């Protein structure tokens, strides 16, 4: 059914459709609306779920680990500082092989307090064993959240659905909201592979010596690999019912592109506009949108960028002492290919700074006019700020 929904509500609706049973969340701007909607759904009975109003994000993830281990479908949402606080337990959730799904609203990390979009928070968790999806619009958020449960439960790993602060979370968009019956057809009720059960007692998370820990981690790694193929199959099923699919990556006009932008999140939709403009002026631009970041779709990326003469990665994040993170990952994907284009890394939109079409054009021309990247990462739009110390 077509509706105009705020991005946060789109998340909440998807959670409702997924028949989540236990929700635990701690408010942090700009995730608060998600939490408030879900709280309301639980109170009014629109959702049959328990809502735990824990006292911090760390406790939030702990509660979900407890709940999921007891055999129910769970959900949480957080952002920025909250995600950072959860860090220890993100490792725990994946190590415990719990298919928890979380909506993560990309927000800059303090100090100073900055509530606007920045990808550093979610990317700083890229090693935690969570599957990560970066969404471009509200429709994708709804669809990805539903798919996330199916994928998570198929490989027993948790999934993070990432959306931009304000640009997605607080923007109203028209979306096609699935009916409950359709959602049920796609996503069955949760069946736990293992759970705390007095009739069949066992102990989760005991001491694990070096002799077996490595094997457990390898099993997780193998599951991550499987997630890649499973995702394609799940998208097949989703497309059958809902008529939509996204792909782990989306290659737009890459076949004959000389320069390919690599984007993620809402920057992608701005890039689509710039693509139209530049193509109209005869520039051979392509866009590679990365949706699935973990597991990193190496093959898809190599294939999509095979013909490019130059690759320009736009990172709304930074790994201090190295470079933009998407750029690092793309470089790593390409480095063993016999032939590959140079990768230009650009840092833009940090801490909610707008990534306008002008910014993307600047990036295009910089890339076109330089044979090789001048340095690992070029920061776009830096200004001289002069206020007292």
């Amino acid at each position: 059914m077509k509706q105009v929904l705020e991005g946060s509500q789109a998340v909440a609706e998807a959670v409702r459709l997924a028949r989540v049973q236990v929700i635990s969340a701690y408010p942090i701007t700009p995730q608060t609306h998600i939490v408030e909607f879900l709280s309301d759904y639980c109170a009014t009975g629109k959702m049959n779920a328990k809502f735990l109003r824990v006292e911090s994000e760390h406790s939030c993830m702990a509660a979900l680990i407890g709940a999921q281990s007891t055999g129910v479908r769970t959900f949480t949402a957080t952002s920025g500082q909250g995600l950072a606080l959860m860090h220890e337990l993100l490792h725990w959730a994946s190590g415990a092989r719990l298919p928890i799904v979380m909506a993560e609203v990309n927000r800059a990390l303090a100090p100073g307090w900055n509530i606007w979009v920045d990808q550093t928070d979610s990317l700083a968790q890229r090693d935690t064993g969570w599957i990560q999806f970066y969404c471009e619009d509200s429709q994708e958020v709804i669809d990805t959240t539903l798919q996330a449960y199916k994928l998570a439960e198929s490989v027993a790993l948790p999934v993070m659905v990432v959306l931009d602060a304000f640009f997605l979370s607080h923007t109203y968009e028209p979306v096609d909201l699935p009916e409950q019956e359709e959602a049920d057809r796609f996503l069955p009720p949760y069946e736990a592979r293992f759970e705390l059960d007095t009739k069949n007692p066992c102990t989760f998370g005991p001491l694990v010596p070096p002799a077996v820990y490595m094997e457990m981690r390898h099993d997780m790694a193998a599951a991550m690999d499987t997630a890649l193929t499973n995702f394609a199959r799940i998208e097949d099923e989703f497309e059958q019912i809902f008529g939509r699919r996204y792909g782990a990556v989306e290659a737009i006009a890459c076949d004959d592109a000389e320069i390919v932008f690599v984007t993620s999140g809402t920057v992608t939709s701005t890039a689509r506009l710039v693509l139209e403009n530049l193509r109209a002026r005869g520039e051979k631009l392509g866009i590679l949108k990365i949706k699935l970041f973990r597991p990193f779709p190496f093959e898809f990326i190599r294939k999509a960028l095979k013909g490019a003469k130059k690759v320009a990665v736009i990172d709304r994040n930074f790994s201090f002492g190295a470079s933009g993170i998407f750029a690092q990952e793309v470089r790593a994907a390409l480095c063993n290919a016999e032939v590959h284009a140079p990768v230009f890394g650009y840092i833009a939109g940090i801490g909610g700074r707008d990534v306008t079409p002008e910014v993307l054009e600047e990036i295009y021309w910089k890339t076109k006019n330089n044979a090789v990247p001048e340095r690992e990462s070029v920061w776009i739009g830096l200004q001289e700020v002069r206020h007292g110390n």
Partner: protein
Amino acid sequence: MEIELTEREFMYPGHVGCPGCGAAIAMRFVLKALGEKMMMVMPACCWSVIAGPYPTSTLKIPVIHSAFETGGATASGVRAALDMKGDTETTVVTWAGDGGTFDIGFQALSGAVERNEDFIYVCYDNEAYMNTGIQRSSSTPYGAWTTTTPGKDWKKMRKKNIVEALVAHRIPYAATASISHPEDLIRKVQKAKSIKGSRFLHIFASCPTGWKIPSEMAVKIARMAVQTNIFPLYEVEDGLHYTINLKPKRFPVREYFKIQGRFQHLTDQDLEVIQKMVDDDWALLLRKAGEHA
């Protein structure tokens, strides 16, 4: 002693607790008192190791080990899930040491109790971070040596009163208990089981290794702590009604301190100061119970 206790054991032997481990005794009593319809959340503590390594466990009930800070929060999640599954019989128990209760786990505990989550939180207190090698916690008593309060830097802060902190939350039931008084401990566990909402048990679980006493003294030292009023046995209902379970003969504290290696450095003057502290605390407790010294 007249105790009605099931013959069944809910633990296997072969666990790796130190000889004379008070925490093992405490666990055994609590398991027997609660029976098999229980699930245990176990944040990092000595028992995380005592329970044995993968693929074994010494406990016959379902257990979820959890991160150090999360005792109260993980239990909240387990309880919510059980409720959603329609299970009204299973008791959720958090089993934590003093570190995971008084310090790093305090926030989650306070949060869970403030929400009046329906679970029993058991803190077995060996008065330091024993699992990591005898470092000081806020539960370490005044006067104690630990590896982080060595030599002349022995702990000069009082032991945090965790029961009083939770009583301030108007917790439905909070009680102290000791491994040396099993009838009292078991009665309290069974009483806690019958109450809904948050319930807290503070169990004195002596640690021969960390307190530097011979292993065979573990129960006796716990008894002495009760007999000297250092660890009074009492209950508080709804954060308001105090019941003192035992009024011992007020043995002087000196004997208790002198036989423990962790207190060897205390002088007679120190012991006098401590005696006064213990007497004052006891008088305060009596007042709260509506009685006089």
